[in-house]
């Protein structure tokens, strides 16, 4: 009971606020942090996300309702709480203890002792033909989403300000089919890094393409091809966090909501596909939508042109 009172006292205005957060779920890559194999720093802090990095790889903490993933963990916080109020700043060293606790800064400790292990559904997905009913369900959900994305023209057929992007996306499809490396490089060059935000719209749509392609290729035992090489080469055009997420997608890993949407598209029913897509488009202002467009295009191109199996 005395510990309780200490904590109660520590919460008083005079004592300052120390937060002790419970991690609810954590992806497998958090083992590297908890075991001390890799040393991480706080990279960036947002109201509802904390990014950690070791100079190459990123780990992200999100509130419980925002989904998990291989490089994500969720913590239980109230909806009104902002990570910006936790006294965290870029560059703070992240300290792991006893394989269980992580100190993010002077005032924040995250306890992973009871965290549930996150597992990807995609690891065991059996990929058959992409069904039109499922694609329709995904497309309808995307079209209904109010995301103000410049990529929208690629699916609504209205062109408009996104006409140039539509042409670039068409270039991605055609160049892979034609094994035209120069055209692919040019199209990727116009997309990667395009758009505002921490993960630009162009990166997100490429990540969606990469994720769907990686899963479908893995299912039929196809190794990386020249698409994968070209994407890796283009990632120097965007910033570290976004580039990392696209690289993860090349490996068939992404945020839980993106993985779930793809899983249901490939192995679920149309209703589950729509539900998964609804959760996906809730990520960020446009990120989830843009990734959804990438997944949709990859699946549609696979159905029509065997695009994922090409290149």
């Amino acid at each position, binding site marked *: 009971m005395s510990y309780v009172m200490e904590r109660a006292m520590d919460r008083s205005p005079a004592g300052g606020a120390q937060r002790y957060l419970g991690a*609810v779920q954590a992806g497998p890559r958090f083992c590297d942090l908890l075991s001390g194999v890799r040393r991480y720093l706080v990279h960036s802090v947002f109201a509802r996300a904390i990014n950690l990095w070791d100079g190459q790889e990123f780990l992200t903490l999100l509130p419980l309702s925002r989904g998990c993933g291989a490089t994500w963990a969720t913590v239980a916080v109230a909806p009104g709480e902002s990570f910006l109020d936790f006294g965290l700043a870029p560059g703070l060293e992240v300290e792991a203890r006893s394989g269980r606790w992580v100190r993010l800064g002077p005032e924040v400790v995250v306890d992973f002792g009871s965290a549930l292990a996150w597992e990807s559904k995609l690891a065991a997905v059996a990929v058959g033909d992409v069904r039109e009913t499922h694609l329709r369900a995904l497309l309808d959900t995307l079209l209904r989403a109010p995301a103000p994305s410049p990529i929208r023209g690629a699916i609504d057929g209205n062109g408009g300000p996104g006409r140039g992007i539509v042409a670039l996306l068409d270039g991605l499809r055609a160049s892979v089919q034609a094994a035209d490396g120069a055209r692919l490089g040019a199209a990727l060059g116009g997309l990667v890094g395009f758009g505002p935000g921490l993960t630009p719209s162009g990166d997100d749509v490429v990540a969606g393409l990469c994720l769907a392609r990686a899963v479908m290729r893995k299912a039929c035992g196809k190794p990386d091809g020249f698409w994968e090489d070209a994407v890796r080469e283009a990632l120097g055009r965007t910033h570290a966090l976004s580039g990392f997420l696209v690289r993860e997608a090349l490996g068939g890993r992404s945020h839980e909501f993106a993985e779930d949407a793809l899983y249901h598209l490939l192995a679920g029913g149309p209703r589950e596909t729509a539900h998964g897509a609804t959760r996906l488009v809730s990520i960020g202002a446009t990120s989830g939508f843009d990734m959804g467009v990438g997944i949709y295009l990859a699946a549609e191109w696979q159905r029509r042109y065997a695009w994922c199996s090409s290149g």
Partner: protein
Amino acid sequence: MFERLTVKKDAYYDSVVLMRLTQEVQRLAGITDALVGMATDLNKDSARAMGFADPELEEAGPNDLIVALVGEEEKILDEAGKVVAARLESRPRPRTGAESTRPEAVYSSLSEVPIGGGGVAAISVPGTYAAREARAALRRGLHVFLFSDNVSLEDERVLKETGRREGLLVMGPDCGTAVIGGIGLGFANKVRPGRIGIVAASGTGLQQALAVIDRLGEGITHAIGTGGRDLRREIGAITTLMGLDILEQDEATAVKMVISKPPHEEVRRRVIAALEGGSKPSVVCFMGEEGGMPGAGAGAGKVRFAGDLEEAAVVACSLAGAGAGRELYPQEEIEAIVRGVAARMPGAGGGTGRVGGHLRGLYGGGTLCEETMTVLARSGIEVYSNVAWRPELLLEDPEMSHAHTCIDMGDDYFTRGRPHPMLEPGLRAPRYLREARDPDVGILLFDVVLGYGCHPDPAGVMAEAVREAAEIARRGGRALVQIAVVVGTSGDPQGLAGQEKALRDAGAVVLSSNYAAARLVALLLGSGRFSR
């Protein structure tokens, strides 16, 4: 990497000071790990985990201070050592005479308090030192609110006998809640002034009673906590009897209430005799004993007996002239909730609302957990627990639920080195979702306790878990009923209505009475039998 261990013999410091000092040292550049604390077994384990294996560490006892430092260079350890020494040598500045004469003065050290100054000393130091601090407080003429646990039964008796001689209350040890003259101590709810005076040997039990009293429009004079062992034979209800005497003499108190686990028989007789000998009507809730509503032959003379916390509060309000003297949630209302469940979840029991799966209850309040088990046992439903009173129902591993299970997550097993769930309700979320994933589970039950000292938005945190659990059940194509008991008053800082709405919006059935929640569970599990 360089390491240094320093042991300071017979040096005692407040644990709040040491915890903050540890944090401060850990923040110093070049320090990779640090521990400043009393050499308790737990802290010695932590030092060993840091890599220290010194004989000096093994010999150190709980009265000794250990300073364990790991740093990148020797000189960094020197600097850190200086910081530790400087902080430990500094003492709080004594307040001026003018400040100390103010009746509302608050002190951070007993040495600042004028002898015979009256008032209450709130003590929360580790149990090893708590008795010493409590003795010092009593010597200075202070009542004692002893939040600390791990105080020996012998020390408790001596402290309480000393207090009785001096006319001073010793509330505790392990006393979670008290409200004295409108001022809350520990985890306390904001309650309006009224005519009911309470003596309680249970923190969350008291909070539940306060919540019901508030809901019925009544209020309290005082709520005196006693600590959970006061009605044991060894203590003889010293604080309870003193508290009842205070309430007897208090003109504003019209009705007295006593809340406790069933006491020793001899102690029980003395408490009942004190109540019968008083001039005011009273209600007694010895949780686990049979009770009954007024008029049902429950009790005679000035004393009424209640079988649960809700009933105790309802009867007390009735005696004070407030409320209708009926259950907070009549049977028809509970049945209507079951019908609502059936309408929302057609899969539940083929549309009857009855649930085929098991109950999993995750409580922050130990008394509420025990009350649920008692109510369900009366309905013929056996519940496993980490705090079960029947050995055959005690869980082998508190981490693993079995059949119907209720867990007291405020128990030492779960709070060792971690905050209590009343402070960080999110620490229950992983277990909650693990239970939600179990295909054999049909009902999830949890409490949300409001009041000063508790988490600022406990319902908000748990609402996220409720949404997630609903999604898990939806994906699994099964019915999952989630029930939240919100223990709080309309004046609590978290905002009672908003807290209830957050949980309701997330999909939980929200009740303000734990007893009613247990009855609901019994109905959902297919038992129609309720006997108080």
